[in-house]
């Protein structure tokens, strides 16, 4: 086992967990609300900046900043739902309106971040610092935390959707909106809850990942693209798919990066996704294309 190989595996698992974490919220919202949330990256930025604010201006430890960031992102997502998503639910042109609206929101968030903070890169402190060396590769504790959190969140979301009352309501709404509303499930409120949960997940990803990706007003764009890629690769609306696709793409990217150079990683991933869409247009775990947007 050469150092390079270990490096690639570690990087891949780390990237994979990070991608999965970012994609989880996106796929959840798509599956339940049928909303392509292009403001998902903005939620990521909101969470990260909120945590940064707590640490840098209130001088509190990051362990306080983390829940604050998560709550801020969830609250922001819920507000977005109330103002911009709720009015168009069930109307024709929902797709167009929400697509443009979420793009608009992400612009507004970047602009607001630029106004409140400044364009300089911010450093959000890692929750866990320190590292250890395994087979010549530096393993950070923060990285282990990201991997653990990501796996745990997938498990939690899965259990939540499968076994809790609220989770079942969400699934019912996503499968048959009308039947669900006849069973007196408050559809619009359920949508709001899903969007808020997805905001919390994006915020958590933002706080945990920004120590390694740095934070600037435009930091949301790259995670959004990654989350979209992972979600599509795994199959839109599929939670298992997001997990598996995150790891596949992460490991693939990491191996390309280690063995062929950083420049090839992104093009390689795009080629992979195009091939994937040719072979399985619905992604790994996707359900029929006909049923979608």
């Amino acid at each position, binding site marked *: 086992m050469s150092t390079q190989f270990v490096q690639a595996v570690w990087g891949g698992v780390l990237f994979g967990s990070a991608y999965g974490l970012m994609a989880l919220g996106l796929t959840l919202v798509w599956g339940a609300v049928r909303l*392509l949330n292009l403001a998902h990256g903005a939620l990521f930025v909101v969470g990260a900046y909120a945590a940064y604010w707590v640490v840098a201006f209130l001088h509190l430890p990051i362990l306080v900043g983390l829940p604050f960031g998560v709550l801020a992102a969830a609250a922001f997502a819920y507000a977005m739902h109330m103002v*911009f998503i709720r009015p168009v639910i069930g109307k024709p042109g929902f797709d*167009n309106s929400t*697509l443009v*609206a979420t793009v608009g929101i992400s612009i*507004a968030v*970047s602009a607001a971040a630029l106004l409140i903070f400044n364009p300089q890169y911010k450093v959000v402190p890692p929750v866990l610092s320190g590292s250890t060396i395994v087979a010549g590769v530096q393993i950070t504790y923060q990285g282990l935390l990201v991997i653990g959190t990501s796996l745990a969140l997938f498990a939690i979301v899965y259990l939540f959707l499968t076994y809790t009352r609220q989770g079942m309501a969400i699934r019912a709404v996503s499968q048959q909106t009308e039947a669900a509303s006849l069973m007196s499930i408050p559809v619009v409120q359920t949508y709001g809850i899903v969007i808020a949960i997805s905001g919390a997940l994006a915020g958590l990803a933002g706080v945990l990942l920004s120590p390694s990706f740095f934070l600037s007003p435009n930091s949301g764009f790259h995670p959004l693209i990654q989350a979209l890629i992972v979600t599509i690769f795994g199959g839109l609306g599929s939670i298992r798919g997001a997990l598996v696709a995150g790891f596949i793409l992460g490991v693939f990217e990491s191996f390309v990066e280690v063995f062929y150079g950083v420049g090839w990683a*992104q093009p390689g991933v795009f080629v992979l996704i195009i091939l994937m869409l040719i072979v399985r247009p619905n992604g790994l*775990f996707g359900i029929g294309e006909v049923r979608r*947007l």
Partner: protein
Amino acid sequence: MSAAAAPVAAVRPKVDQDAAPWRRVPLVAVGGTVLAGIALPLVLARISIGDYLITLLILFFMQAVVAQSWNLIMGYGGIYSFAQVALFAVGGWTTAVLAHSLGWNPFIAMLFSPLVALLAAVGIGLPTLRLRGVYVVLLTLAFHELARVFAVTGPRFISGGGYGLVSVPTFSFGNAVGQQRTIYLYYLAMVIFGIATFAIWRVIHSPLGVAVTALRDSETYAVSRGINQFRIRMILFAISAFFTGLAGGYMTHYNGGISTSVFDFPRLIDLLAMIVIGGWGTFAGPILGAAIIIGLDQYLVAIGDYRALFEGLILAGIAVFAPQGLWPVLRKTYDRYLGPEPPGPPAPGLPAPAQAVEEIPEIQRGGGLS
């Protein structure tokens, strides 16, 4: 076999005027607009800020071309392509490389921009246009990103060392300099704008355009009536890319260079704002939108960084609360107060025109979480 076998002249059935309202565009209005466009710079040249206004108009023409092309695929075609700016850049880079590295005349080099942009569009379209909605968003954004990375890190004759190509030769019109040159530049921009607008108008009101709208409004029905979705989308995408590339070529020589900042997200947002504010899926909407955004921009400079914030919020607000944009509102006002009388009720004896087809409820989309 003489008279009887004489080939029957292909007589095109006369289109019913009421069935084809677009044929009722008054020539006077079109001619008047063109004449005004020709006369405008000559008038503006006499006032002190005329040069500035002419440059604004040039900018308006080009942005309007790009916005219209985008609206053609996004508003009419329902293809959520975010590759518009990348195609603009492809056009820009083509002519820049030809003129800069090979020393071609800008006028000749510019002719290649739309062609290369068209080829690029075919390249993106082949994997993308068979897909729908969100997949198109992703793949076109990916193309945007790849094009940006290539423009920054590509070979030196393309990247110019990471900042783009500077010192690309600009247009030269004989010995014209200063204001005279600006006026020539204006006319060139106006011609491009005119050609693009006319072509897009024709496309929208051709069988192709009708097919596109049908696909957008009821895909299942349109496909079942024998419309080849992929081919139609491809043609539309190619047309859109053609004019976008042309605008890219013009802007490169107009600015005397092209930098990687064309890929910046705010540029994409400006274009999107033009379409959304003007009127998504209407013919004149993007033109109106371009005029509004470019006009407002001059005032919004004063509020600096708040501009993007407001733009984002306005975009979101219009998309949700007034998804039709401004053009339909204007149109309605015009029809109510200034427009010609609407055609009267059908003469008795004729069958009444079919009433609006009862709206078919959209099939419940299943799917869900798994």
